[in-house]
């Protein structure tokens, strides 16, 4: 069982979470090994830490040994957990990129879209991130791939 500290400074995305204000998870993508109860605990902690913050706080929170970059879109919190030495601003951009793709793919996405099509949301994540790194950043390319995949269904 891997502990929460990987090698000393491993620059990898630990997990990506989408949660709503009430704490319901709409997406949880883990790039490191965690027990189920560890995962649950992490989800609760992230929720607690992120929902108390408002507009006058920065979008970065120090969390255990690493940090969370998050942004709130309507009622959803998009959180990426990275290493403390990572570039905050770049990941903020990555979140926004991701959200824009979701928006385009689901045509003005709302929370219900993410609920009823949860497996498609995972596909979007997998097109843009892999192995804890950003994989594809071109929105047009991602959307093209997603449509291709959709045609196979």
């Amino acid at each position, binding site marked *: 069982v891997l502990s929460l500290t990987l090698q000393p400074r491993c620059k990898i995305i630990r997990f990506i979470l989408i949660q709503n204000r009430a704490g319901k998870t709409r997406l949880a993508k883990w790039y490191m090994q965690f027990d189920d109860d560890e995962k649950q605990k992490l989800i609760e902690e992230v929720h607690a830490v992120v929902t108390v913050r408002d507009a006058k706080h920065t979008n970065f929170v120090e969390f255990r040994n690493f940090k969370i970059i998050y942004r709130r879109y309507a009622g959803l919190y998009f959180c990426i957990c990275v290493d403390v030495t990572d570039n905050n601003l770049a990941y903020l951009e990555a979140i926004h990129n991701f959200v824009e793709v979701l928006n385009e793919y689901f045509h003005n996405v709302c929370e219900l879209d993410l609920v009823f099509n949860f497996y498609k949301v995972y596909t979007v994540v997998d097109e843009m991130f*892999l*192995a804890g790194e950003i994989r594809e*950043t071109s929105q047009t390319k991602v959307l093209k*791939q997603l449509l291709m995949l959709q045609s*196979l269904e």
Partner: protein
Amino acid sequence: MPAPIRLRELIRTIRTARTQAEEREMIQKECAAIRSSFREEDNTYRCRNVAKLLYMHMLGYPAHFGQLECLKLIASQKFTDKRIGYLGAMLLLDERQDVHLLMTNCIKNDLNHSTQYVQGLALCTLGCMGSSEMCRDLAGEVEKLLKTSNSYLRKKAALCAVHVIRKVPELMEMFLPATKNLLSEKNHGVLHTSVVLLTEMCERSPDMLSHFRKLVPQLVRILKNLIMSGYSPEHDVSGISDPFLQVRILRLLRILGKGDDDSSEAMNDILAQVATNTETSKNVGNAILYETVLTIMDIKSESGLRVLAINILGRFLLNNDKNIRYVALTSLLKTVQTDHNAVQRHRSTIVDCLKDLDVSIKRRAMELSFALVNGNNIRGMMKELLYFLDSCDPDFKADCASGIFLAAEKYAPSKRWHIDTIMRVLTTAGSYVRDDSVPNLIQLITNSVEMHAYTVQRLYKALLDDISQQPLVQVASWCIGEYGDLLVSGQCEEEEPIQVSEDEVLDVLEGLLVSNLSTPVTRGYSLTAIMKLSTRFSSLNRIKKVVSIYGSSIDVELQQRAVEYNALFKKYDHMRPALLERMPIMEKTATNGPSETVQTNGETDSTILDTKHLPSISQPASQANDLLDLLGGNDVVPIIQTTVPTKPASAGGELLDLLGDLSLTGGPTPTPASSVPMSQPPFLLDGLTSQPLFNDIAAVIPPMTAYNKNGLIIEFTFERSNPNPNIAVITIHATNSTEADMTEFVFQAAVPKTFQLQLLSPSSNVVPAFNQGSVTQVIRVLNPQKQQLRMRIKLTYTHKGSPVQDLAEVNNFPPQSWQ
């Protein structure tokens, strides 16, 4: 059996549940239906059932009975089946289940599938949760795909390779040939993932690092093209072409250029270009600039470039976006030591950030401000910092107060200013001030001879206002005790002397004794102060009365003091003036941090300080005895406890013997042995905390690991005590790499007879799991005969509910620690 309900139906139904219990019921019902459907081995609906199971899993319900079904889906030929199957595998399976190994063959086949999307699925799954065994088996396939011409697959393969390397670092060599042409790609996606792969390889292996250094010119060229080229719609974000790629390349350049002159030089120009040409109006541009700054600071860049970088950070500080301000402050904090002057230029902006609303920004601004204080700006900075101290959150106050004291001590332009500043801190944040500041301040005041009258007057006035802040009250009562005569005679030069009578002063001091707000320690201070005034004031009778009243106080401390003072009045009145005379100037040795006093080695000296009645910070005496019993007690000396000393002011050696003869009613008798207690005061008053905030004592002695067992590691770090090379100061750091906290952690130590040892209080008694923090404790060892240092340590703690105890010998002290 009717067809299982569709996913949508299920979701809709669950969402209508109004309570948690209702939801649970629905889920259980559906799970039962799914289970029976699985038992029927129904191929048609398996996909639908697993999808539903995954949804329920996302809500937090257990879904492990679906694991095998996921495998069956993966093995199916239909794309929709595979897709849900792989998703299920990624969500439900992990390394610890043996089941996941069954996937290996399926993934292998799918990696060679004719459809790229199936290959993509396989790569994705392997890259996200592949275990070491799977990676070993499939690395060859991944490597093959890295060389294919299909860019969609190459991207995925590259990141999959990153995962493989992370899991099985030995396989890195295997991917080397494939990396040859990675950077000549035109496709941005492939380029991006290739850079990531190269970065991972360079970070892991110094050999790879030197091998890839030759790529620097190529990387520089790519970066240049990105900046100079026109609009490229595919990867454009707010007018900047592929910022993510730029950031990754900058990061790789950072790794390649670190410590290498040639590479650093090759990238100087491009870094300057990026730094000056990037648009700063949006977050995107700033992200790139930030990465550039990090790179510039890490490589061997020329000074002009470094100044440019710091100026960028300075500009960030003025940005409206608090994210950017935060990021700038963090970076400035890292560079303030090395590029001090450049950072100084932005001091006023940094100080403004103290008023920011975000807590983390405030904290960084505070730390940075303290780092920037120097002799020139002390007055201005202190004004801002004091204002900050007034208004900040309680969590900050202790750190801020300590920082202010330190800064004031280093750079005070005048004694009066210094005392005023201290007064200000005591009155505004008095209750947050650390305990060790009280003796430090007292020493400072004693040494500022010409300011005595002014100080005592100001402190007296502060007492009249407020007696709730204990550190303030303690310092004030001590001063009044010492300099009460100056107060009453109105000798103050610095400001308008106040008119106060002896009775009024005694009223105030007695008020402290009876007030509910005063702690026992404070009461001790005020009683001693009253006693001292007996030689300075003329109202002897009143003082005598007060002292005799407390002779029967319930508080043992007070009682003992009162009884001894009484005895002083009755039997030893001829000695009273000598005993209670004015304190001499104390030697101040170190200029940074709290000062040390001279070790007297068992002899009394006129420089012995008044025994400050510090709060008891010792380990209980019984534990020490246990340790002795355990060790047979023959060659070890008792640990000097940092208990509150039990005697009044001592100014002459003969006195001790005398006091040993006193027949005291109640209260513990002072120990006749002169060596042990005498060396207590210097130790006690030396306020070395175990966690210095801004301590920059250079560690010349290498640290050592003293104990490493069962996940508990105890490291010793050393500091040489400046005025007295016979004293070694050891800080222990206890860390815990197991998965459960170690609570009630107690560290004890014993040394051979020729040494003396003092243990200060630990930072906490819980060692958190997973190395998430450490417990520190300071040990001071006196080694006058310069013998080889040896130590026996005993550890007790509670781990996972059961108590653990262990003894160990520490013999591997580095020679410098005792020579």
